[in-house]
């Protein structure tokens, strides 16, 4: 950028004229005007006294007002992304210049600045509508082609999974919002973008929190999002509502997508809607009754006969099929106890929140210590679950299935995936074909995986 003349004249700025520069008091900003060669440098003399600015001017003309309104609202989706990313106009212009926008249509920096400012203003004015996407379709103010509306909404609600991972399970409150600048520093996402994403989470949460019926569908209906995005939001809402602990160091290896998968599992097994889709109740909360009933599973570890019988059944099924068989046989009781105790504790909210950390500490870490592979764990859990059905005296089949459904699929899910692979990447993976679990379970598992992944 060239400054052709530099005549410093401190003038009393009429703030609204340099609105964009002054809104951000921290800004020490280079500001180009649309006159060729006329380049203005605006620098706040003091961050607080933003009314006084120094103006370096080249030409004797400034643009007071610059507006472009189309009957069909023109929206450049590349600029939209820059806006969503929270860039300032000048940064966005730089990015666009780097991307070669100047080669198009013989543009110059002034034209580009004018266009970017105009686009940003358009998006800002549309933002209000994007807060309730259903309005976007019926409002009369902007004529936006339907396919563009869809893109606008989808992009507006898209989020960075790094950011989502940070706020996952946190209360979507003002307190958290105050911490956003830390998250912004940590993730490298601009504060503006962080705020938008956070506000989106909060908005979706507030709308669907009290609604009945399936969570994903509710989100889709009210926010017109795509299926995948709606599922991600369902996970965020679900985590925010139950406030699962995800921030512990031991859980750091898990990505947002890992948790989102788990949330999906939890929603489909442990909520009221999971059991009875006709029931007009919420998907957001875990079913209290079910959590209470989980206590009954204690019989599996408290009743010594039952535990032995269980072990025998599992061992019989797994013998020769897993490499860690010996260790498994030794540790069976510990593992079983860990899983069942975990279940029985879930009556307390605190323990529900710690579900993931407990799972990792009590079950995954021992397995990891023993160098289990993912396939082995999957196989183990499958047989472990099935064997319980064969226990004559065990009467809580329903509850057991619901409980183990999550645990089982969570295990074969990314939840443990990463960690185990990291530990066992050298150990040869046993081929699945050598294992013969009940066919129906395998099928179920497959279809499940196909659906979920």
């Amino acid at each position, binding site marked *: 950028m060239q400054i052709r003349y530099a005549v410093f004249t401190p003038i009393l700025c009429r703030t609204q*004229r340099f609105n964009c520069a002054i809104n951000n008091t921290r800004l020490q900003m280079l500001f180009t005007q649309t006159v060729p060669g006329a380049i203005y440098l605006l620098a706040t003399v003091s961050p607080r006294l933003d009314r006084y600015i120094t103006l370096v001017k080249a030409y004797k003309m400034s643009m*007071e007002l610059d507006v472009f*309104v189309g009957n069909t609202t*023109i929206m450049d989706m590349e600029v939209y992304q820059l806006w969503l990313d929270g860039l300032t106009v000048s940064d966005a212009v730089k990015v666009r210049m780097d991307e070669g926008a100047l080669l198009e249509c013989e543009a110059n920096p002034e034209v580009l600045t004018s266009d970017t400012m105009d686009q940003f203003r358009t998006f800002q004015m549309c933002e209000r509508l994007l807060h309730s996407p259903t309005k976007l*379709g*019926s409002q009369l*103010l902007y*004529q*936006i082609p339907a396919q563009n509306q869809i893109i606008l909404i989808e992009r507006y609600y898209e989020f960075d999974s790094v950011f989502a991972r940070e706020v996952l399970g946190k209360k979507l409150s003002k307190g958290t919002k105050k911490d956003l600048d830390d998250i912004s520093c940590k993730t490298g996402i601009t504060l503006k973008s962080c705020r938008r994403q956070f506000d989106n989470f909060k908005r979706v949460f507030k709308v669907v929190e009290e609604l009945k019926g399936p969570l994903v569908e509710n989100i889709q209906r009210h926010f017109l999002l795509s299926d995948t995005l709606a599922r991600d939001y369902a996970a965020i809402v679900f985590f925010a509502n139950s406030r699962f602990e995800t921030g512990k160091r031991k859980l750091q290896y898990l990505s947002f997508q890992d948790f989102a998968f788990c949330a999906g599992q939890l929603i489909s097994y442990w909520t009221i809607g999971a059991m009875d889709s006709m029931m007009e109740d919420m998907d957001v909360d875990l079913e209290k009754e079910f959590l209470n009933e989980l206590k009954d599973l204690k019989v599996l570890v408290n009743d010594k006969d039952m535990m032995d019988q269980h072990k025998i059944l599992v061992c019989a099924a797994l013998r020769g099929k897993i490499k860690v068989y010996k260790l498994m046989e030794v540790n069976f009781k510990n593992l079983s106890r860990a899983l069942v105790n975990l279940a029985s504790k879930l009556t307390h909210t605190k323990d529900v929140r710690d579900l993931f950390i407990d799972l990792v500490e009590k079950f995954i870490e021992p397995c990891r210590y023993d160098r289990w592979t993912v396939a082995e764990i999957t196989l183990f859990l499958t047989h472990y679950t099935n064997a319980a059905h064969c226990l004559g005296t065990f009467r809580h089949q329903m509850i057991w299935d619901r409980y183990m459904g999550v645990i089982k699929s969570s295990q074969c899910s990314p939840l443990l995936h990463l960690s185990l692979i990291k530990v066992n990447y050298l150990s040869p993976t046993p081929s699945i074909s050598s294992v013969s679990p009940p066919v129906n379970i395998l099928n179920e598992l497959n279809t499940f995986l196909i659906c979920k992944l």
Partner: protein
Amino acid sequence: MPGKLKAKIVAGRHLPVMDRASDLTDAFVEVKFGNTTFKTDVYPKSLNPQWNSEWFKFEVDDEDLQDEPLQITVLDHDTYSANDAIGKVYIDIDPLLSSEAATVISGWFPIYDTIHGIRGEINVLVKVDLFNDLNRFRQSSCGVKFFCTTSIPRCYRAALVHGFVEELVVNEDPEYQWIDRIRTPRASNEARQRLISLMSGELQRKIGLKVLEMGGNAVVGYLQCFDLEGESGLVVRAIGTACTLDKLIPGSASNTNTHPNTAPASNACNSPSKEIKESPLAHGCRSSHNSPVHSACSSQRLSHSQNFSVSVPTLVFTGMGSGISVGKEAGPLKTLLRQQAQSALEQREFPFFTLTCFPPGFLVHIGGVVSARSVKLLDRIHNPDEPETRDAWWEEIRQEIKSHAKALGCHAVVGYSESTTICEEVCILSASGTAAMLNPRFMREGCLDAGGSDQRLSRQPPLGMVGSERAEGEVSSSWLGFDDASPPSCGFCHIPYDEFNMPFPAQLTYCYHCRRQKVPDVLFTTIDLPAEAAVTGKGCLIQARLCRTKKKAQGEVNATAISNLLPFMEYELHTQLMNKLKLRCMNALFGLRIQISVGENMLLGLASATGVYLSALPAPGGIQIAGKTPSDLSYDQHISTMQKRINDTIAMNKELYNIHPPECIEEVVGSPIPDRQRSRLFRSTSESSDELSELDLSHGKKDAFVLEIDDTDAVEDIQSLLTDAPMPAGFYSCNTEVMPGIYNWTSGLQMFTSVRVYRLNNANLTNQGLNKIFTDLCENLLKSLYFKLRSMIPCCLCHLNFTVAVPEEELIQVAVTAVAMSFDKETQLAADKALNKGSGENEEQLQFSMELCGESTSSNNQPTAKPSGLPESAMTHSSSRDRCSTWLELLRLKAHTIRRGSVKTTSSSERCSPLPEVRSRSLRSTRSLPCGAPVTVVKMTPLSFLPRTRIVKYLGIINMFFIRETTSLREEGGVSGFLHSFIAEVFAMVRAHVAALGGNAVVSYSMKECVFMENPNKNQAQCLINVSGDAVIFVRESDQEAIPPLITCGQTSTTGADGTT
């Protein structure tokens, strides 16, 4: 014809939260018409109330129906305090009064508040039952249709064109009444909006009466304007062209021989209304006779300085002897024609037509642009007894225009428009048009049936119908009694005046197309390019921009200063236009619009037009620069580099616009033109004066343009000539309806409005500095537009009209409304190829014109052209012969302009290859597809048509006036944010009204007024916008349906796909 107006309030949605405590609103609605008000129940605690009210019935006079809008106010009920207004909707019910237009208004309207903008929407149903009443002395004019479109609307045929209608009404501006000091800004704005709505209703009704009196049933080219004269009042004026239109009945043959009086809507015109003039005026709007005037003595004194007229390009000063020269020595044909036309036009006070597009055969010859300006002082005193009125002011101007036209040997003015610019108490009234000879057939009753079959006046899209048009043209010209029918594609270029008594010096040549009639070397017009015109290459937007400083002054001194500046400005604008035209190697301007704006300390002039190369006119020469003092070596070098640059630019432009004048013709031997004609050609050449033949000869080689650099101004001018940046590849632009040379539009279009305001930070600027700034500003705006619309490439910006204003000292405001239309590249290339071979539009035509052109050079090229002398005549060849030669003298002395000296010849014979289209971007049309969205997509365009569609119904005129004010400018995103949302709101309201009428598009849309005022210190801003257009229903033309519109119009079947898709 009293009527019953019925309204029903159905529901509301997206209402704003009015009760902070509950975050809800208790809304109810007041429906008001005239003095009657109805209320709905309160719908408590909802942002989406469902009132579902009963039908509110108003029994009213049809006069009121025409004048008054239906006023719907949405309020929030408050038990303890006054009810809060949420916003209002004004519905103009005029479209319901015409039997052919809409029958019901039903839909969602944005609820508008002048302070907060759009606040939710309301669903309303409105119907009107009209009772028949045979009152002879009625004041209403229900049933007269109004069209903003400046051509015969698509689904009508003009049985008769009656002529000019005008009217104006005056009132006090509520903003300047004493009460304004105590009422809220909202109340003041609403009073203003309502008053203007009333006044335009009244105006429309009065014009309607005039039309009925003339026996017409419609007004075409209706142009309504507001003059915000500040303290001296508010003037609403309108002009239009009265016509008798017959609807083309779907399915029936196109040449229905319905007599105009039996045509459906024309029965209204049978009621004579002689008493109108004496009629008492309704609603307290004062008639034009009460308008403020200034004292007789001052007007007397000022009349010389204020009230002159400037006539620049091809126009004349009011010649004393013009009447004599006309027709004195004209050929018998012309005399005959003139007599016929005169008899038809004689009775008319002003033979003006606001139309810019004409049915084939209507336009016989074009003389040139005529314009008149007059500087007036607005008076503060509102004296109703004073005889001088705004009417009288306009009358003067129109008389002047009329006499200009006469001097050009024309009996009519087409493409006529009027405008004003006001600064403080100084007001410039301007009128301009194109002098023309018309075919009298269209103006006389009775002879309609004679040419009935070829009289289908609905304008035709310029796609492949040349053949039929040609036939029609020939019919008409033979009917007119020409012994040798001139081909229709060049007839309009032929001079209407007498070649031996030319109203101004011009170089005449034989038409390059027919070789029989004389044509001028350049043609300036305010109309659109006639559909039949043969054009070489493509057209382009040409703008002349000018800024002049002026001392601050008051009253008469100011008016005089402005008066003195005006002629210089016009002259310079014209010179610039001329230079730029030459630079682009073109020879005609269409749609010329010169706007002059007054500010406190400067005058702005902006002339826009579309340049084209008319095949019938001689090829323009290049531009030659001549230095005055050729002693200095470096100076010479400088000159030669400049010359080189100019030559390069011309060559580049030729490529760019695909202009390849048929120069190869020299090789063509054996002309097909019969000997009789050739001999006739020679004869007339030999008969003509020496000067003429010399000029004639110079055409073989061409070039008659020398720019002499004798001072810095000229250097500046030349440099500014070259600073016009070329358009990016894939873009074309014009300010007319259609772009010459582009035929294959796709349905992708994007209408837009762009407004910019610049502040000149330093007051002591020179004229050159200002000029540079102003030019940069316009160029930059164009560049931004190109960049914005790059996704539509290849496309053309049509109807690109700039409006400049000086809202405050040191502020320049530029507003532009235009439409970008994309076209199909593949077929365009093919078309270009075809065009490159010659100038025709289809193959038959092509051959025809080539033969003619061949003839032209062979006969023209006998002697070597020599640099012909007579610098004086060459210089003024395009400016005007003047009665007041004094000021031309003055101009020369002042040497503020480029001098055109001796005629020089340069041969520019290198043939250019067709323009290689560099870019091949995939066509991304912005076509909007509503997928399940409840909002109807409404297209808007400033043009009179939508490409690839057929307009099946006109639903009525849209004429809306909005005021928006804010006291929280900063919070609304500054001035840009404020205006951006306001313009978007205006668009939204226009679309909603059109959709409610059942339409899916607005054609001939224009933003008449955009007055923006700001007071940043108080964090306030105010903006007034006036828009108008025609609401229509269109259906998409399926692509294979490439039948000439003759048939398509007749077959207007309702089976077409719904236009909303």
